[in-house]
């Protein structure tokens, strides 16, 4: 591998990693608070991308407006899912997992009649390339990094500096104690869903100009996000960030060397080993 190829891989890895991080953050937030894995995350990612397609590409709206719109729309959807699906199930973990699976299956299947059978493409928003450290890289991929970083920073500030963020951290530590302190657990859970969905939508929106769109496009990112949150530790936000970076880098370097499928296989085997020997991952909380 030449130096320039390495740099290219690293930057692309960082770029893809940023997408994974956004997905993983939502997942890990929801796990930390409610101990559920949101299997519908991939579908939301897909929907975020399609919002960009319809609002930005077909509708002619400015990209950032569509981007924010996607996050808002799917954030509201997330809140409604908490209200309509998570809450009525009264927190049983297994029925919740299955219900979210059902939601995911529904959204992906409904995508075909609604969006049509053909793959869709969104033209690049930030056209052109740029010279980074002697390597030519697409602007589209590059711009993902600062946007994702801004979102991550925003989330971090939200969690650590706002009252709602504090409430979330309280629920994560001890749901009953938080409730006794006056925290409206239902509403805060709903917000967690909303934030998680919004972040997934953001990843989809960012990826829309790069990859082709189809209703099943969320499956792989979902699985990758799983890998990240296990690597980083279920429930840990710094873990999700670090895990996302690591996976992004591994993905771009190993995948280029060995091929996408073997890289995927290796990461799954790695995950199994990790779960068996160190389920807490890098930063996670101890398993019950």
């Amino acid at each position, binding site marked *: 591998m030449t130096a320039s190829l390495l740099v290219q891989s690293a930057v692309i890895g960082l770029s893809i990693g940023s997408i994974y991080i956004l997905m993983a953050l939502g997942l890990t937030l929801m796990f930390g608070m409610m101990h559920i894995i949101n299997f519908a995350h991939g579908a939301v990612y897909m929907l975020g991308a399609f919002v960009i397609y319809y609002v930005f590409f077909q509708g002619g709206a400015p990209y950032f407006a569509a981007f924010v719109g996607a996050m808002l729309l799917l954030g509201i959807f997330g809140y409604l899912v908490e209200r309509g699906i998570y809450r009525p199930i009264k927190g049983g973990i297994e029925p919740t997992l*299955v219900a979210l699976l059902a939601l995911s299956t529904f959204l992906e*299947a409904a995508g075909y*009649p609604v969006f049509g059978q053909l793959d869709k493409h969104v033209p690049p928003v930030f056209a052109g390339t740029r010279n980074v450290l002697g390597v030519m890289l697409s602007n589209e991929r590059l711009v993902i990094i600062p946007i994702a970083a801004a979102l991550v920073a925003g989330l971090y500030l939200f969690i650590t500096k706002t009252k709602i963020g504090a409430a979330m951290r309280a629920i994560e530590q001890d749901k009953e104690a938080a409730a006794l302190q006056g925290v409206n657990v239902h509403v805060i859970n709903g917000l967690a869903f909303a934030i998680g969905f919004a972040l997934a939508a953001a990843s989809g929106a960012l990826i829309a100009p790069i990859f082709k769109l189809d209703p099943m496009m969320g499956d792989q990112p979902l699985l990758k996000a799983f890998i990240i949150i296990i690597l980083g530790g279920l429930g840990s936000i710094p873990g999700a960030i670090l895990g996302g970076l690591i996976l992004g880098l591994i993905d771009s370097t190993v995948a280029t060397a060995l091929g996408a499928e073997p890289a995927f296989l290796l990461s799954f085997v790695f995950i199994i080993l990790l779960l068996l020997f160190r389920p807490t991952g890098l930063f996670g909380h101890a398993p019950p």
Partner: protein
Amino acid sequence: MRRRKIAPLVASAVGVLLALLLPQIGSDYYLYLFALVFTNVVLAASLRPSLTCGQLNIGHSGFMSIGAYTSALLAKNLGFPFEISLLCGALLAAIVALAIGYPALRLRGVYFAMVTVAFVEVIRLVAQIWVPLTHGMSGLSGIPKPSILGMTLTTKTSQYYLALFLMLAILLVLWKLESSRLGLIWKSIGMADNLAQSLGVNIAKHKLLAFAIGCFFAGVAGAFYAHFIRFLFPPEFGFLMATNILVYNFVGGRGHFAGPIVGAIFLSLLSEPFRGSPYETIFFSIAMLMTILFLPGGLITLPAKLGGLMWRRRASAPSPVA
């Protein structure tokens, strides 16, 4: 008490009778359809022991895949007779289950579920990558038809009866296990495993047993499927199918042995008119969601909810008193 036991018994008897008579009433299409439904029933019912022990397994289709490919390859490449290749496929599935279950079953809840998800993807990717053996994404074709004692089962009717026979035999074994002391131990582990442990139950051994037995039968289902459809394509056995199997159990009802049977039959048939179109999956997923939200005990509790009162507790709680 007497009346409660008769209805399901009669229903089962009628069901079996209809199944036996199907070749007389239905066309080859129906035989094909129901053979697949029976396969789904076996898959769903064989997941139940693990679920009873409280282990959420979203990787069952991976073991089906192992059974399918093993049996297919042994029969196609090495000329093994069907009975032997089926047995080998199921045994390998069970062995792999033991190997991965031994460390993995120590994990609780979500962590175990994640291992199963990763596992099913590993199996799928191995099948996709190991092209010389499995033909990867081109699919493995030319799998021999099933045979009994050397006689090839060429007609759809004979294959249908094979599926029916296998399903009934497997259901009988699973029923015997569940209604024995072993099943009681499994239920106690699922209800409160710490408590079971403190009462003398070796939960590690029993969880592993439930897991391995279930995976063995998943292997049988896979082997049958391979020789019936005669074409194997790795993504078929992925995460989606694994979740389907789980859903058959949830929608049918986790509190009763007949739950996965009812769930598998209902959902397989429900999606059939829409087979191939996305509407199949749409209806499937809506059925899933509706059942989880409005009928948490599963379809099996429907007669109870519509009927009398005393059934309510019995139908949804695993009661050990026969």
